[in-house]
């Protein structure tokens, strides 16, 4: 017999959205690109671990050159940031499949005629986006963390760095939630793929460039470039700044970044709510 809780409908909504994305060749192409950097990092960690045993001095030399592979929180933070670049491209193209087509081709009506409300629908879509983000950023980072520990001094590494796991998960959830809300809000208002890609590109390519240019040209000579408030225009950088805190690193503009991310999330929730309400009552 059917369960009486509509909460259980969230998973079928998310699974359907993900299945539709998984059936696109473009997804697998971008996923392969994302996996390239993962495989490269995985191989590099393995190589370093081997060198540590065979040629310790060489390993120390290489580690001093490649600070991003020292097994600290920064290793995973930067890896996730790199993965995030591919993830952004993927989401730009997958956004329409994940939710946009529902609005342009009747899927939304299909869902709304079932025993589910707008909230469950939005949560299902958010879960789908979030899982894609986790799949590309968080899960590979966790694999690398365990690889690093297992290939080195396992007990000591895990004991000293267990908080990194929480950092990876925390940063992953931050990315999932904020990017998920933003994408769902944009897709709700702009379901067609081309305008969505343009807008997404504007947010994550044009704004960072603009913020760099403004920070460079308008900065006070006494203020460090990284501390310029114009940097807050770069949403991706804000996520990095807040994400760093999960790994115990506090970067400049931390509170500003939190305010920006919180505002974006709040704005996205409002936009999603009003748009879905409008679509529900539209004739």
């Amino acid at each position, binding site marked *: 017999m059917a369960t009486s809780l509509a909460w*259980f*409908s969230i998973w*079928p909504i998310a699974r359907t959205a993900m299945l539709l994305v998984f059936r696109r060749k473009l997804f697998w192409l971008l996923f392969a690109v994302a996996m390239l950097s993962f495989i490269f990092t995985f191989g590099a960690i393995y190589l370093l671990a081997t060198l540590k045993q065979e040629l310790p001095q060489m390993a120390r030399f290489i580690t001093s050159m490649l600070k991003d592979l020292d097994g600290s929180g920064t290793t995973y933070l930067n890896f996730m940031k790199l993965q995030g670049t591919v993830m952004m491209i993927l989401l730009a193209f997958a956004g329409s499949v994940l939710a946009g087509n529902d609005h342009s081709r009747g899927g939304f009506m*299909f869902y709304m005629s079932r025993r589910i409300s707008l909230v469950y629908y939005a949560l299902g879509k958010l879960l789908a986006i979030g899982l894609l983000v986790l799949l590309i950023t968080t899960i590979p980072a966790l694999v690398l963390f365990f690889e690093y520990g297992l290939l080195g001094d396992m007990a000591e590494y895990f004991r000293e760095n267990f908080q990194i796991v929480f950092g990876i998960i925390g940063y992953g959830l931050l990315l999932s939630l904020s990017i998920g809300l933003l994408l769902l809000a944009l897709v709700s208002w702009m379901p067609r793929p081309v305008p969505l890609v343009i807008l997404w590109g504007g947010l994550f390519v044009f704004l960072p460039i603009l913020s760099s240019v403004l920070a460079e040209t308008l900065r006070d000579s006494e203020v460090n470039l990284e501390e310029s408030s114009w940097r807050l225009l770069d949403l991706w950088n804000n996520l990095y700044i807040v994400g760093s805190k999960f790994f115990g690193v506090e970067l400049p503009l931390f509170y500003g970044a939190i305010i920006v991310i919180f505002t974006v999330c709040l704005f996205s929730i409002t936009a999603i709510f009003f748009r879905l309400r409008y679509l529900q009552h539209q004739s």
Partner: protein
Amino acid sequence: MTLEPSVSVSASPIVEVKNVSKWFGPLMALNGISLDINPGITGLVGPNGAGKTTLLRLLTGQSKPSIGGIRICENNAWSAKAKSHVGFCPYGDAAWDEMPGRKAVRVSAGLHGFKGDEARHRTETVLDIVGMADRAHRPIRTYSKGMRQRIKLGQALIHDPDLLVLDEPLNGIDPVGRDELNELFIRLAQDGKAVLISSHILNEMDQLADHIIFVCRGKLLASGSLETIRDLLDDYPLKVRVSCETPRRVASLLMELDSVKSVRIETSDDLFLEVQNPNRFYGEFAEFVLSKNVDIRGLKATDTSAEPIFDYLMERSSKPG
């Protein structure tokens, strides 16, 4: 249907619509509609923009009426409980072209809270009912329009609803597929379900529906059995094509019938008649054929599309008295 019913059917109507109006800003999409829907096939007929889709949305709990109330099996239409009694088959495809039909039906099972073996069992049962069990492994993009319609029907039937709401289900379907779907609708109605079919083509409903609801410009123009509707259309001027071998002779004889207003010889085989009272005309015409011993090859009403009939009903309803 062999599925365990999710609800029990009560004695009162499955759908009760009471004085429902719906506004979208300044636009009044529905104006004071009241009707009941019982088990059997009900045709919701109206021209494009009549308010059919709005009424379907209200019935399926997708939106709330501005005024009035809708009860489905004694529950408010927008409550989750009411939705568990309703299966909706929307007009458009849900953009799941890449997904196999079986999976699409399975998703619907999940959305109704069925899991594991129960979901699998229900999926296979409804695929069997809609005749898609052997083709459900293929992606939806490879399906014909009729097959897509069957999958949507399967999705709507997954929870064994009491009310099945179908938005233009026969639109774009070829005649063979149309007959097959009609048989399916009749079977479902015989199983005790209320099947509400919207259409803008009156002819589609003629042989299918037990009950017709006419809506136009947001108003309920007429509601009742086909006979009731036919009675309303007594004075409706109908155009009829008669195919025969001797049109000149037949034309002169037909002019003697009271119900025939005018006769026009169009081709060497066809006559076009304008008749004033369709019901009386068909009776007179049957007697005419038998008594005059004329060779009639065909008789077809040429303007039974919904629009002129709605115009007629609208005009009739706006007349005082």
